[in-house]
């Protein structure tokens, strides 16, 4: 395992654990992330990927361990972290009766952000929804709804992106938008943790690769010169039998 030193601007967690209903969803996770890094997290279903993302987003309190995100403590300075982190979850967090534009404005407003004039329109334009920006979300397809959540991600400038299965329901075109946006995010020094099953897309975006199995981080390495087939083989070996 490779760990860069604890950095104030980055992410650093130690011994993170979460117990749910008498089992550990996550245990003993150490993780460091430096500015510009994108960690792609692979792992079987139920391996704790979502829990880890939720802890980093301050949605879930860890049972054990501690961590710092952008210099703010994961448990004590949750509000600070919330200003610097954006999460893309399974649920869209969209109100069906509001338009895409209204949804985005509301999401920004409750975070205390006043998006610049035209920023909402520009974000929707970028994900190809400029024309339906004022349609009620209820009338849009699930692919389009997913694009709205992507636009919401683009709206704010934050240090850390937490993306949970971002490719679900995204077509090729939207995936390209996500990839380009992530590239820009990295260049700004932004960090990202992406949880996915999608080897092809996930591998492409990663600067670091990690495998989570049964709540433990069993691999965490820079992508370096590793190729996808090698990594897949490694993954198969390490997670054999449901990830023991």
């Amino acid at each position, binding site marked *: 395992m490779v760990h860069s030193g604890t950095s104030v601007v980055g992410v650093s967690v130690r011994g993170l654990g979460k*117990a*749910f*209903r*008498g*089992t*550990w969803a996550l245990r003993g996770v150490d993780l460091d992330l430096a500015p510009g890094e994108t960690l792609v997290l692979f792992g079987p279903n139920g391996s704790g990927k979502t829990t880890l993302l939720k802890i980093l987003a301050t949605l879930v*309190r860890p049972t054990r361990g501690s961590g710092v995100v952008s210099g703010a403590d994961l448990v004590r300075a949750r509000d600070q972290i919330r200003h610097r982190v954006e999460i893309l979850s399974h649920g869209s967090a969209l109100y069906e009766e509001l338009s895409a534009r209204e949804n985005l404005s509301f999401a920004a407003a409750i975070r205390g952000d006043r998006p610049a004039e035209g920023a909402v329109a520009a974000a929707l334009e970028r994900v190809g929804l400029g024309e339906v920006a004022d349609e009620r979300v209820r009338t849009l397809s699930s692919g389009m709804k997913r694009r709205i959540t992507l636009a919401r991600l683009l709206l704010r400038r934050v240090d850390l992106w937490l993306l949970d299965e971002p490719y679900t329901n995204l077509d090729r075109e939207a995936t390209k938008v996500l990839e380009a946006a992530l590239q820009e995010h990295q260049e700004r020094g932004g960090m990202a943790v992406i949880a996915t099953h999608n080897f092809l897309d996930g591998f492409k975006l990663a600067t670091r690769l990690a495998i989570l199995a049964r709540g433990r981080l069993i691999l965490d390495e820079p992508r370096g010169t590793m190729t996808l087939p090698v990594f897949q083989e490694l993954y198969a070996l390490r997670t054999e039998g449901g990830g023991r």
Partner: protein
Amino acid sequence: MDRLGVTLGLGAGALVVAGLWMGLVQAPPDAVQGEVQRIMYLHVPSILTAYLAFTVVLVSSIGYLVRGTRGWDRLAHASAEVGVVFTAITLFTGAIWGKPTWGVWWTWDARLTGTAVLFMVYLGYLMLRSVVEDQDRAGRYAAVVGILGFFDMIFTHMAVEWFRTLHQPSSLQRGTIDTALKLPLNVNLLAFVVLYAYFLARRLRLAALDEAVEARDLGE
């Protein structure tokens, strides 16, 4: 069995026996109500103990929300359970007393209704706890009910004071009680409070053991 538990258990047993003997045998029958009145020795201490129990629920609920430590939550849970039992005893003895005195088992007397409401509130508290699987979450939700429930208890009591009521004025409040009845009543009250402490201690120990088993299963 731990020492505190044994002491409390023996103390409660002795006091209950003494209290019952004083109330049911030694004390003179009531001038107006006769023998029926003796049920007061169970009825009054049990509701007062229930009030005590729900006050403990309030305090430990606040403690849990503020400090977030399991101990407060266990205390709140245990006290609510015991409080519900004592409220049930109050309602039950009240009904037994009501039949010969008012002629019916149940009447829509305001204080009676208030106690029934109290019973339902804390029954809801326990039900909520049993439904929520995650322990911390159950604790937090229950704490909210525990806090609101306490104020509800006071408010219901207040609203009752305004309502026309069949119930005789609270015996203790009015100071109308004869000293010959007062001593057995006080002994019974003490007995119930110690009994409450005993139940609470047992329940807390059980909860602590439960959580220890759970922690062991987690591989702590």
